[in-house]
């Protein structure tokens, strides 16, 4: 089977899976089996594509031409390959986790949940594989629309309000700003293809570059660059599996992935660093990192704290891209993978605690570690990875981004990264410390172990292990991603 066929399969499998899941709505066991089978099949397809891309291949898939020159075209390159691997691989674990979580909570309308989940993964695959900005934009919008029913899953007034914020900010920014930028790009350069070195060189100069960059960066609302971050905490009203895979991995990473794509393949890092009209972006991202971390410290709701932590970590990637150096771009790309593994672990743990004990507020979680030791140890490992301490995967990407900042002589951003790490410690580790060492609300210091269902505990143990494994296998990922820096 050729690589293009595999790419087509990567899109078809989740779409067909969604249809099958919808058909199996009456039989929950069959429905969940189909979900898992789809996830495994998709991951297998994606893995089969890796050797081609690693060998320098750039397989293409052309679907149709919507308007003259405006094509639905997919091209696979290392960045997209990595994103596809993360999203499809974690979907397997997340599906197992969903089964445990949704059944334990006896959630309503589970068929709709699984169908929309599969469709969201379909859209994420579209984002990962897209070969031009037009295809990327479409997949991006499909991702927004298909995750809306997941955010509003509970159908409570609060969920509806959050859904409005979610849709309003994401659709609003993408149509109001991103689409304008895309049309302007088309108008100015006559192409929307992703090319090494960008498409603007020689076609655009002066402040227009800055304006375009602004339209793109704020048009990509999923990257949650402040002040367009409000949708992410709002999305936390969704069931935890959604927060874990979509709002820590697929959706938000689709955002920063788009940021990287735009900066590396539409503008070109060289072009931006020479023009000087993009320097503001790094400062906005730096401010976003610190502000979001500070807000995270004030949140008592565990998921809200993790959401602000995500906003902060996403800006790491935007900052890395905004350094406009090859090393920065690679570091940013790597952070997509590293943060995904760490943050999904944290969300899995938050959901497991909620399932087992019904607790959502951090202040209520004193002594929780004695009841749920496995979960809290996993949380500890995930926290270390997000903070960026060895021996966790997260340390490498932070190291690379810091090197990138040094490389471009912007010491201030090294300082930002270090301060942020301290803030991360301040808002993550107390949860663990309190969980293990504080007496609980009745003053007891011992408790019987009562973990969440196995379907929840196994995935979170695996992702926690993944955080450690990534530390030792960072080199192959680094080598794999090097081409996007042009090195």
């Amino acid at each position: 089977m050729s690589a293009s066929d595999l790419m087509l399969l990567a899109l078809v499998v989740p779409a067909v899976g969604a249809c099958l899941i919808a058909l199996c709505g009456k039989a929950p066991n069959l429905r969940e089996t189909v979900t898992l089978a789809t996830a495994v099949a998709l991951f297998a397809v994606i893995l089969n594509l890796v050797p081609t891309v690693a060998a320098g291949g750039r397989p293409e898939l052309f679907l149709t031409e919507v308007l003259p020159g405006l094509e639905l075209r997919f091209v696979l390159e290392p960045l997209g390959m990595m994103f596809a691997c993360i999203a499809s691989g974690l979907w397997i674990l997340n599906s197992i986790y969903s089964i445990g979580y949704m059944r334990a909570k006896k959630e309503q309308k589970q068929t709709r949940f699984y169908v929309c989940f599969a469709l969201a993964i379909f859209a994420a695959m579209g984002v990962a594989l897209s070969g031009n900005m037009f295809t990327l934009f479409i997949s991006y919008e499909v991702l927004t629309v298909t995750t809306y029913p997941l955010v509003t899953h509970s159908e409570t007034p609060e969920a509806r309000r959050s859904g409005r914020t979610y849709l309003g900010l994401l659709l609003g920014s993408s149509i109001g700003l991103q689409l304008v930028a895309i049309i302007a790009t088309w108008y100015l350069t006559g192409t929307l293809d992703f090319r090494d070195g960008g498409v603007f060189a020689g076609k655009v100069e002066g402040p227009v570059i800055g304006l375009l960059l602004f339209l793109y960066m704020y048009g990509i609302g999923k990257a949650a660059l402040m002040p367009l971050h409000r949708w992410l905490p709002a999305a936390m009203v969704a069931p935890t599996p959604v927060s874990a895979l979509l709002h820590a991995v697929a959706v938000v990473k689709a955002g920063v992935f788009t940021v990287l794509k735009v900066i590396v393949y539409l503008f070109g890092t060289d072009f931006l660093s020479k023009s000087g009209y993009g320097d503001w972006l790094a400062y906005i991202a730096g401010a976003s990192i610190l502000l979001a971390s500070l807000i995270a410290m004030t949140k008592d709701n565990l998921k809200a704290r993790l959401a602000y932590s995500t906003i902060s970590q996403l800006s790491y990637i935007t900052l890395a891209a905004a350094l406009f150096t090859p090393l920065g771009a690679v570091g940013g790309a790597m952070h997509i993978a590293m943060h995904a593994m760490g943050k999904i672990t944290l969300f899995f743990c938050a959901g497991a605690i909620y399932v087992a004990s019904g607790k959502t507020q951090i202040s209520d979680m004193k002594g929780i570690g004695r009841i749920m030791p496995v979960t809290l140890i996993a949380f500890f490992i995930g926290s270390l990875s997000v903070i960026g301490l060895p021996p966790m995967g997260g340390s490498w990407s932070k190291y690379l981004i810091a090197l990138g900042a040094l490389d471009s002589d912007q010491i201030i951003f090294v300082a930002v990264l270090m301060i942020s790490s301290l803030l991360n410690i301040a808002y993550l580790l107390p949860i663990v410390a309190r969980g293990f060492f504080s007496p609980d609300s009745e003053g007891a210091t011992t408790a019987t172990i009562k973990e969440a269902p196995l379907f929840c505990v196994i995935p979170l143990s695996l992702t926690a292990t993944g955080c450690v494994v990534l530390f030792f296998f960072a080199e192959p990922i680094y080598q794999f991603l090097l081409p996007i820096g042009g090195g």
Partner: protein
Amino acid sequence: MISPNLPALQIIVPLLAAPLCVIIRRDALVYWFTAIVAWVTFAVAALLLHEVNANGVIDYQLGGWAPPWGIEYRIDLVNAYVLLIVSAIGALTISYAKPSVDQEIGEERGYLFYTAYLLCLSGLLGVTITGDAFNIFVFLEISSLSSYTLISLGRDRRALTAAYRYLVFGTIGATFFLIGVGLLYQMTGTLNIADLGERVAVIGPNRTITVAFGFMAVGLAVKAALFPVHAWLPNAYAYAPSVATIFLAATATKVSIYILIRTYFTIFKPDFSFFVMSLGEILMVLAVLAMLVGSAIAIFQTDIKRMLAYSSVAQIGYMVLGVGMASVLGVAGGTLHLFNHALMKGALFMVMGCVMYRIGSVKLDNMQGLASRMPWTMAAFVAGGLSLIGVPLTVGFVSKWYLITAALDQELWWVVALIIASSLMAIIYVWRVVETVYLSPLPAGAPTERQEAPLAMLAPMWVMILANFYFGVDTRLSVGVALDAAKFLVGGGS
């Protein structure tokens, strides 16, 4: 034998069939008769478009009288395309109509509806096909009078005042148009459009011509419901029977826009219309106002048919905006939107027809939680709504893409910004409905079991919805024709 007389058949078939409906009178029979006539009319339009594509402009002399004295039917790419849209909508709508008409109008009065429907169809086709300015007026009146009847057949008593209001506005519009035609006749001694175009250019812009232009521009603006002379439209659409709303919303204003384009570009020529009279600026300002005001009012409507009607006011703004830019890209965008908007509004009003059929109301409050009872209908609303917003892979995206590139081409940044703003407002008014039907609980005491609309209504509705996506991806037909038509018009073609 048949092939050379296709242009006449296009009109004769529905026009003669209309009185036959009154004679047949029996409910089921009259319906099937109307349906067959509508589909035959569509087939004729498709053949005509094929013919024009293959052999160029068709001249058809009624009764063998040579123009400019006799009446000439003149079919070029522009109106062949409009004929196809109108007759396709006519055929699809009638396929959908039976359950809804039986329920809303009653079986014993059904034949009146079908008679008026066919008359309206032939009027609209006649306006489009003819190459004679006075003949346009005649057909305009046929379509208008029959649409007053269609609207007044509505169940709600307010339909009567809505029809009356439309009658007053429509008559003013048509009369203004006629005054303009009269003045032109006085100056040129001809009524044939192609002939008029040549002679007006020779005479040049004197006062009579200018006044004729003014009368015709205003009269057509009323018929097309261009802001601020749109006031007849919302109530007429809201209170008409569901099927009449579908048909009128998807065709009537489109045909008025078509004559508007003909008048500006073929009779008066772009030079006169857009440079001497600076019509472009006027149209663009009015169009943008229509987009913003129409969308803004739509957000606050509780009756969803009324909401869609105000959205139509906004969408007419898009079409006129394209015309006002007077560039190839702009006119192409405008004509594209004419086609595309027919698809999306036709589909959305079909959804409302299904809702009306099942729950007897289209008020937002009565539609709470409706998605669990009518899943297919409501899924269609979401799909049609996405097209209305202009999401990629739908037709709405294609026309907006052309309008925005046209605006960029002339460096009209404020227009780009306002097109986007109006699209964002569309998100709000579409999503209000989606949120209510999907996320609100069913009202207490309402039946909870599934009550989907009958297949006879669902199938044509989904054909329309899928067309929204098909023509959003495969744009060769629509964009190709629109671009050719625009080049032809902007070049002052006749």
